[in-house]
């Protein structure tokens, strides 16, 4: 719209602000949220920036409302986002399911704190990782990304919008309090609008449009309200017309497609980063802020002559199960540090399938691991 749309250049900003800027660069023009520590700065930044670029910021009455307003905005054709943490994430869960069912592109940021319940509002956790996967009822797939720094959250917020538009699904950014509140250098490049992905629009005239009829691939084109398509969408099980159909057959067709549109495209969606895994006897598998500590631990282990490597999950959901399975055939053990009492380790263990040992290095929250803690686990495993 205007030249003030993007701030480009080098900045020293925290992860929450970088996330908001990533959203602006990704073309997000709607934010609905509710104040919650430690995600509030995302909302504050959006409240400043969105009006400047012709977007809408609104503080809703709660997180239930925030998530729904985001879905509504997306159905009016605008890229939309919300940001929250622990308790707010729980409140949003039902309508993440609505987003999945209606196939609504949108982005939900969780700056994780330690729980359960009110827990440690100002201190870090990585404790909603399984909730991200399974928090809404029903059988479904979701996409979740885990940034490790302010620069990373900027970049991954753009990726999140791209994936949500491409696959018509809510995409979760599963960040944490440390990344959200740490300030580091962030380079904001010019992001050309042509480089961004947008939902496919219907190419048929209104009379012929069926909201959930696929043409190429498993993701149907999406009309938006006010264009004359006069479509109906529902959270009930539905057919290609978007009409409710209360049968096991309709359920089978719909759920298979909703799940398969993610599962069958996992190679396109799943990103991970490997360091020194080729000859590793022990692979540390980490995500989010814990990755940065694991990097130290791996280096220290190498210095001691232990063949350690690092697998960083950038996409946490869908889980990089094929890669973990492959690695389990060439390594002796996985060490999984996470700021919870065992969540993603369960996935690693499942995929390792007994071929490699799996060791959890838990932290109950309120702080990050020390490199020595992870190193100690590597050492013990190496014996």
């Amino acid at each position, binding site marked *: 719209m205007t030249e003030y749309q993007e701030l480009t250049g080098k900045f020293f900003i925290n992860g929450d602000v970088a996330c908001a800027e990533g959203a602006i660069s990704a073309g997000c023009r709607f934010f609905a949220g509710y104040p919650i520590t430690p995600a509030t700065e995302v909302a504050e930044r959006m409240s400043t920036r969105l*009006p*400047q670029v012709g977007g809408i910021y609104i503080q809703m009455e709660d997180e*239930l*409302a925030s998530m*729904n307003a985001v879905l509504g905005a997306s159905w*009016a054709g*605008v890229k939309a986002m919300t940001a929250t943490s622990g308790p707010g994430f729980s409140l949003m869960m039902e309508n993440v399911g609505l987003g999945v069912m209606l196939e609504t592109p949108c982005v939900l940021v969780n700056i994780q704190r330690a729980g359960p319940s009110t827990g440690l509002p100002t201190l870090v956790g990585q404790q909603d990782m399984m909730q991200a996967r399974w928090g809404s009822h029903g059988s479904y797939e979701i996409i979740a990304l885990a940034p490790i720094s302010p620069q990373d959250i900027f970049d991954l917020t753009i990726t999140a919008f791209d994936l949500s538009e491409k696959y018509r699904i809510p995409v979760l950014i599963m960040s944490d309090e440390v990344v959200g509140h740490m300030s580091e250098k962030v380079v904001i490049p010019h992001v050309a609008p042509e480089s961004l992905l947008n939902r496919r629009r219907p190419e048929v005239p209104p009379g012929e449009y069926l909201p959930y009829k696929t043409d190429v691939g498993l993701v149907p084109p999406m009309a938006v309200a006010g264009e004359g398509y006069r479509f109906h969408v529902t959270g009930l099980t539905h057919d290609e017309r978007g009409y409710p159909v209360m049968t096991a057959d309709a359920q089978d067709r719909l759920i298979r497609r909703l799940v398969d549109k993610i599962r069958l495209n996992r190679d396109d969606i799943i990103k991970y980063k490997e360091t020194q895994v080729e000859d590793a006897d022990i692979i540390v598998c980490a995500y989010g802020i814990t990755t940065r500590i694991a990097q130290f631990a791996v280096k220290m282990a190498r210095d001691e002559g232990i063949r350690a490597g690092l697998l960083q999950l950038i996409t946490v959901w869908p889980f990089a199960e094929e890669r973990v399975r492959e690695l389990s055939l060439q390594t002796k053990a996985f060490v999984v540090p996470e700021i919870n009492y065992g969540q993603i380790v369960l996935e690693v263990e499942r995929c390792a399938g007994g071929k490699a040992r799996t060791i959890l290095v838990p932290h109950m929250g309120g702080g990050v691991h020390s490199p020595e803690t992870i190193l100690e686990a590597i050492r013990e495993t190496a014996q």
Partner: protein
Amino acid sequence: MIDAMNVEEPSIEKYLRQDRLPHIWCSGCGIGPVAGCFLRAIDREEIDPDRIAVVSGIGCTGRVAGYVKLDSFHTTHGRAIPFATGLILANPELNVVVFSGDGDLVAIGGNHLIHAARRNIDMTVICVNNFNYGMTGGQVGPTAPLEARTTTTPYGNFEFPFNLPYLVSASGASYVARWTVLHIRQLEKAIAEAMTKPGFSFIEVIAPCPVVYGRMNKEPKGLDSMYYYQEKSVIRNGADPKDADLELNGPIVVGKFVDVQRPTLWDHLREVSSRAQEKAKARAKV
């Protein structure tokens, strides 16, 4: 049952998803006629149907979204208003109508209702009030009068009900009316007024649920229950909503209670947005 929607008036057939009929509502249910009034209001007022978005929550009334041939969203329980908030804020050209029931809008969604009224956001809410949860078999609702019998108040309701016009007007709505389902002309006119009025409009429609609430409270059966509500009603346009409490078998005060001009959310939002853009521009020049 189609006749309850008065489809004999050809004007509304084109707004119905014929391929979804017959609908699920019980015979004698008040919801269909309200939907009929809504569609006739659009037609009479010549509101561009392509710009209308209907949003419903869950419940018997929540099914309205599925029968109208308009952009329509059947969302989650209680959340029609925030979903509609997102729609209208993202595209102010839309004419957004929330069509849902008392349990959906006032119990589980009550917080959103008062906040939407407070914001005076451009939206019309049509609340079909039948005093109970029809879809789940007739449990007590937040508008059920004291002493009303429902499947979960077998000895009589022991809670005070909401007076919806009072609640919504106190929260800041620009337009508030209540009619019964057989006040067809008044209701149609009210919907047309509400849809063309800037700001938050709220219409409560007292409608029978003859198969559950009506049966348990010994109301007349079938169509007679609609006449019963109409006969019980007293038209008092301009009445103070605070005097519009409902009692079991008592009079039903109906009418247009509030119709005022107040700045809407958009008025303020536009002003603030242009201020933000001016500031950004000034800074960019430095």
